[in-house]
């Protein structure tokens, strides 16, 4: 029964992830009408109100353009250091940086949680298994305080911007005034839906009421995503400004500013990353509860919860490199200068740090799965195979980690006869890394498959054939990935080098999807080898979950810096120059300091949020404190 649920979870989740890929593609329809509505509500000429706002996708947006033109926009101001207010003892950039990053961490968490809560609730409804419903409720319960913290941090962020960067804020606010107004309204909607969803959980149970509740969950997700997409628009406008001339005079409507070049790539990347991140954070929660649990049932419950959280994180982690790759490709397409700054210049080393962090993510997720095999005796037969997976993972990871520019001592430089290494240099460039990442993904998936079938024996008649088909699929896929990487990466010109990564990705996805389908059928009605004991997990496996959460947080902080940092000394790329003394691009050591401080602050706040969720259930009877009431 349980394993069937797992299958459904798996399938539903993969589908959901793909659905999220589609979501931003559908967004223009929703946002165009929204933008048109706000544009007309702001503009002084009411005649420009587009007639049926929701009828077509792009048409209303263009129709609203004349309305926006009624406002004249100033050119981007040319600022000097004197234009930036300072407070003695406060570094304004660091202040804004930390607050923005904290806001983003919490934002990512609270946007993500309702997504998988919604899916888990739906699974619970489909399987009529109450444990799913309870888990979904617990997830939303532990994150409830995080919503208000997100809002507080958001307010603090705009306060900091107004205080320290007033001219930038003014400039941005004028361009985005339409969507800022919508943003505020959406915030009310978000809170209202959230509170009904959370407080009404036990009220809206059974039959039609449950459907109403599920619909509320969908609505909550829709509003949450819309909020994030609006906020993304401001960020991406600063990276790839749209509808502005060289002097920074804005000449479009709000929709044009929102729908800038990098908006959709960032939306996709953030949605996928948020789910993975949210999963890792609730995983850490479950891990902590598991470690401090006294009773056996409690341990079983939190073990199960941690397993699901880890599953969510991995499922979203698998498509994440592709979303990142798409974002980078679009960035190159927008500005080659920005692209080379990102990949070839100062920031090249940041991707080595990123490789270490993602390596930590993959290794800890795999380790958790391997440890999970200890839950049942039936899995022991798979144990000897683990070391081969580990070897492939480590080798793939070493390839991924190898930097293009090697750090060489002078004697090594002499020995090699130059800064180029004949063999390691080959591993330093993109085709090798793409191949390695695909291997990482395929073998992580293999770990997961081993875990799932470890305790099972397939009873269908074609089990042997199915196994053979899967082995063939993996082998053929891996050969294909290797050939694509080696041949196109090194023996054709660069166009194909970049292009070859797409069939590689598709191969990986085909392997994952097809073998999931084969598995689903092959293990239908499979019999268990030995009983599964939830809760029989070594404590060190739980530390893998903490490693996952901490690495993820740190990684997000680092990549947030890169995204922002490639603008270099511009507030808005090539339009609005940063004239403050902090316009310099910080070195990586400095960045690591800030990100580490931010991570510690975030962790402390998350612990506070989780702690709050526990005290609401506590009830102390203070005997003799209250006056005895006469009956």
């Amino acid at each position, binding site marked *: 029964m349980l394993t069937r649920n797992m299958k459904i979870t798996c399938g539903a989740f993969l589908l959901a992830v793909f659905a999220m890929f589609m979501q931003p593609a559908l967004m223009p329809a929703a946002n165009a009408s929204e933008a048109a509505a706000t544009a007309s509500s702001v503009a002084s000429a009411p005649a420009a109100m587009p007639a049926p706002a929701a009828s077509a996708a792009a048409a209303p947006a263009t129709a609203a353009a004349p309305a926006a033109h009624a406002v004249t926009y100033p050119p981007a101001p040319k600022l000097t250091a004197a234009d930036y207010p300072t407070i003695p003892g406060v570094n304004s950039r660091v202040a804004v940086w930390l607050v923005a990053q904290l806001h983003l961490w919490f934002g990512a968490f609270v946007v993500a949680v309702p997504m998988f809560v919604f899916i888990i609730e739906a699974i619970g409804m489909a399987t009529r298994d109450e444990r799913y419903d309870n888990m979904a409720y617990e997830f939303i319960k532990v994150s409830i305080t995080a919503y208000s913290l997100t809002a507080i941090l958001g307010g603090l962020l705009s306060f900091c911007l107004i205080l320290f960067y007033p001219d930038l804020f003014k400039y941005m606010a004028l361009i985005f005034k339409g969507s800022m107004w919508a943003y505020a309204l959406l915030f009310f909607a978000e809170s209202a839906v959230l509170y009904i969803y959370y407080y009404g959980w036990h009220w809206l149970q059974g039959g039609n009421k449950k459907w109403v509740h599920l619909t509320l969950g969908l609505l909550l997700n829709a509003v949450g995503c819309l909020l994030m997409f609006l906020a993304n628009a401001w960020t991406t406008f600063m990276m790839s400004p749209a509808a502005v001339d060289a002097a920074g005079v804005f000449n479009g409507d709000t929709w044009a500013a929102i729908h800038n070049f990098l908006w959709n790539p960032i939306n996709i990347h953030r949605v996928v990353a948020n789910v993975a991140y949210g999963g890792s954070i609730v995983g850490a929660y479950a891990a*902590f509860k598991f470690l401090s649990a006294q009773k056996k049932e409690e341990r079983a419950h939190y073990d199960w919860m941690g397993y699901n959280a880890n599953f969510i994180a991995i499922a979203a982690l698998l498509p994440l490199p592709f979303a990142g790759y798409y974002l980078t490709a679009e960035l190159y397409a927008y500005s080659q200068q920005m692209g080379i700054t990102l990949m070839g*210049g*100062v920031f090249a080393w940041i991707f080595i740090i990123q490789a270490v962090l993602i390596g930590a993510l993959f290794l800890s997720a795999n380790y958790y799965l391997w440890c999970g095999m200890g839950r049942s005796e039936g899995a022991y037969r798979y144990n000897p195979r683990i070391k081969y997976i580990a070897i492939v993972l480590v080798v793939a990871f070493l390839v991924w980690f190898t930097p293009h520019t090697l750090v060489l001592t002078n004697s090594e430089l002499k020995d090699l006869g130059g800064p180029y290494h004949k063999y390691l240099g080959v591993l330093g460039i993109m085709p090798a890394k793409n191949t390695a990442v695909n291997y990482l993904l395929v073998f992580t998936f293999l770990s997961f498959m081993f875990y799932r079938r470890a305790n099972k024996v397939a009873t269908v008649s074609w089990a042997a054939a199915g196994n053979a088909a899967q082995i063939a699929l993996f082998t053929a896929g891996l050969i294909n990935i290797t050939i694509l990487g080696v041949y196109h990466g090194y023996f054709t010109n660069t166009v194909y080098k970049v292009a070859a990564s797409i069939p590689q990705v598709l191969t990986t996805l085909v392997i994952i999807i097809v073998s999931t389908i084969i598995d689903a059928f092959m293990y239908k009605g499979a019999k268990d080898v030995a009983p599964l004991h939830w809760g029989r997990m070594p404590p060190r496996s739980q530390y893998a979950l903490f490693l996952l959460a901490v690495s993820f947080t740190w990684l997000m902080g680092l990549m947030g810096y890169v995204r922002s940092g490639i603008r270099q000394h511009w507030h808005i790329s090539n339009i609005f*120059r940063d004239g403050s003394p902090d316009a310099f691009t910080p070195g990586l050591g400095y960045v690591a*300091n800030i990100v*580490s401080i931010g991570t510690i602050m975030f962790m402390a706040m998350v612990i506070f949020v989780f702690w709050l969720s526990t005290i609401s259930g506590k009830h102390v009877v203070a005997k003799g404190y209250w006056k005895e009431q006469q009956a």
Partner: protein
Amino acid sequence: MTNFLKVAFFSLLVISGFWGFSNFGIPQIKPADPPVEEKVDLGAMTMDQFIALGKKNFDGKGTCTLCHNALGRAPMLDKIGAVAAERMKDARYKGAAKTVEEYLMESLVKPSAFVVAGFGKSGTNDTESPMPDVTGGSIGFNEAETKAVIAYLQDSSGSEVTVEIPKMAPPPAEGAAKAEEAPLKTAEEVIARHGCGGCHKIAGQTGEMGPDLTRIGATRNKEYLRQAILDPDAVIAKGFTAGMMPKIYGEQMKAKELEMLVNYMAGSKK
């Protein structure tokens, strides 16, 4: 509680691991400081290009060739590198320059430090130069542009170029800066800004290159005066040559300023 401490310790350990790797595991590259200005990249300029910039400013923005030409309105500068050394020894020299470069800089910003005999303002016995300060008024050179002109002068007069290319870049293209300036309040301000007095007798100034404008209102109407500013060569007063007065004022002045100036001149009748 021990669990909490263990987990906190573990998390801090992980964070410090990442922190340590970023600080000590990889080479620390200090990214380049942002460029001082976005427009002209002086850092990448060679001296030849800098001299070329000087020539451009000498012929163009500086309007120097209006007077420093074969017509003899101002001294020729083709041997300035050589004569500058003699001038500094001259008894009439009032400046503080020690080198040719300093002399040139001084003569650009304080033209009266040495006035070549016969080229002073009339009535001042060659103690005051009719030349405007190139960093002010309508020319408005910045430091880099002034130095570029000096480099050009040294180079074109065949002496050694001693100027160093300044680190600071010239301001962004004109127009952007000019457009934001508020219109001037009075005609006197307009005259001062555009340096009319360098060539004309007007508003207490005593230029001699162009016609005397102190009583121009008595003989000419507003129509004529406006045209004379916007298109100076349309009608040339007797005794003066065409091509002397720059044709730039139509672009530089605001309509309001032009009208103030025309009214001022039309009102100067005695």
